[in-house]
């Protein structure tokens, strides 16, 4: 049997009214790849993401997640939404948030089951948050909250983890810790990060997908000034992250 790609996009076109957002996009993402989807604001990243999540339908072409329509395939997908989209003071604990990832697996009526709680606590442990399971969301730091939300994405045992701007609210140190965690998770699953921030790309990611109306795929080693300039224009400050700096 031919292996099924976690993400397979063929000849995709998408426009809002007369404004084309994605044109003739093709993309195959391989199992256990660590992918970064980058591109300028308005370049079509969010649209691509919504197509992958099954929240938008392609107008032309196909989008397949594990060989299925995204509405079906998304059950193998763990998703971390943008940080700013959620209420940081919502009255729930870290454990309550992670339990939400068991919806669709647990029973439909009544409270969560004991095995949901066990799975949620295991996942909090995996992201290094076991001690803070009973802590209210409002009492967690930005980095801790991201870990809780990653645990929520993981608790359904996904084969693909999709993260939308996971580090936009975090300082450099916490950002690096989070990428270390993602690298660890990448041993077991495909990881796709959507971001406009390309500063860290070289040190962690294997594949870079550039989205600016068109979709181009590069191995990380190929991403140089020329590619970035062609995508973002001339005025980009590049920051090199050397490996030593990670330990500093």
């Amino acid at each position, binding site marked *: 049997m031919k292996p099924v790609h976690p993400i397979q996009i063929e000849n995709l076109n998408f426009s809002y009214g007369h404004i084309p957002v994605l044109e003739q996009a093709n993309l195959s993402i391989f199992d256990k790849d660590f992918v970064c989807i980058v591109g300028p604001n308005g370049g079509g990243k969010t649209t691509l993401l919504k197509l992958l999540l099954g929240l938008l339908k392609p107008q032309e072409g196909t989008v397949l997640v594990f060989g299925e329509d995204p509405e079906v395939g998304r059950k193998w997908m763990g998703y971390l*939404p943008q940080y700013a989209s959620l209420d940081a003071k919502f*009255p729930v*604990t870290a454990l309550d948030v992670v339990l939400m990832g068991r*919806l*669709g697996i647990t029973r439909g009526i009544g409270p969560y089951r004991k095995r949901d709680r066990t799975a949620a606590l295991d996942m909090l442990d995996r992201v290094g948050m076991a001690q803070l399971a009973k802590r*209210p969301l409002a009492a967690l730091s930005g980095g801790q909250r991201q870990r809780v939300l990653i645990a929520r994405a993981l608790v359904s045992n996904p084969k693909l983890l999709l993260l939308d701007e996971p580090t936009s609210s975090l300082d450099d140190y916490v950002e690096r810790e989070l990428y270390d965690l993602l690298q660890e998770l990448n041993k077991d699953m495909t990881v796709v990060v959507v971001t406009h921030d390309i500063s860290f790309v070289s040190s962690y990611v294997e594949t870079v997908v550039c989205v600016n109306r068109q979709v181009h795929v590069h191995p990380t080693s190929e991403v140089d000034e020329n590619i970035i300039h062609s995508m973002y224009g001339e005025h980009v400050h590049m920051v090199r992250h050397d490996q030593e700096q990670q330990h500093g």
Partner: protein
Amino acid sequence: MAEFFQALLQHTFLQHALLGGLLASLACGIVGTYVVTRRITYLAGGIAHCVLGGMGFARYMQVVHGWAFFDPLLGALLAALAAAFIIGWVNIRAKERMDTVISAFWGMGMAIGILFISKTPGYGEDMMSYLFGNILLITPRDLTIIAGLDLFIVAIALLFHKQLVAVCYDEEFARLRGIKASFFYFLLLALTALTVVLLVSIVGIVMVIVLLTLPAAIAGRFCQRMGPMMALAAGLCALLTTSGLALSYTPDLPAGATIIMLVGIVYLITTTLKRN
């Protein structure tokens, strides 16, 4: 105060008022917590004002066309549910600004009520009790309806609490997990509509939003989970409606307005306290 408790033993209308307030408090605490955390206070206000349309229409049909069964409480129930579904549908379908859409329904609901009431003979006192409530006019039949609605709301909230919380916190994520998020959004709006109707009979259309949201908002300052927040909000609602009723009795003040002032003052005091 002592006079109130003495009167309570003698007068069944006071017993009905007290019981009505206590029953409504249960739904108020549960649904108020969802409304406050999902930030649909303004939507709930819109639903409340549409209720006048239903009450006015029902009263008109009763008086002018002799539809005896169609009492204003039934009209309120239908109008509230219809308003919730229409506003919710417009929210999902049309890309209009939500607050503008709600304002349109808010005003039109009231206008429909006023038009029907103005064409109903002897309308003056009806209008006042719809707008400002009259807890002392609660009948045993009202109590049965309030108890029935209460039971329904509590049962739904218990059975689907986890979905409702997930939809309040992150609707998109809930949908991705295979939850029918739109269904639960509409269910939440329907529960809000039913609770609004319960509370309208206590404090009236104009002030209902205070009783729906402030006890939950006060509770939110002291609780870090939805369950305890609901319990505390229900307790506060029961305590404050009872106290308001008792305080209003001796000086013969309107009960609804007294309750609202009490809730508002407690809310304002707690906002000055430090968040824990």
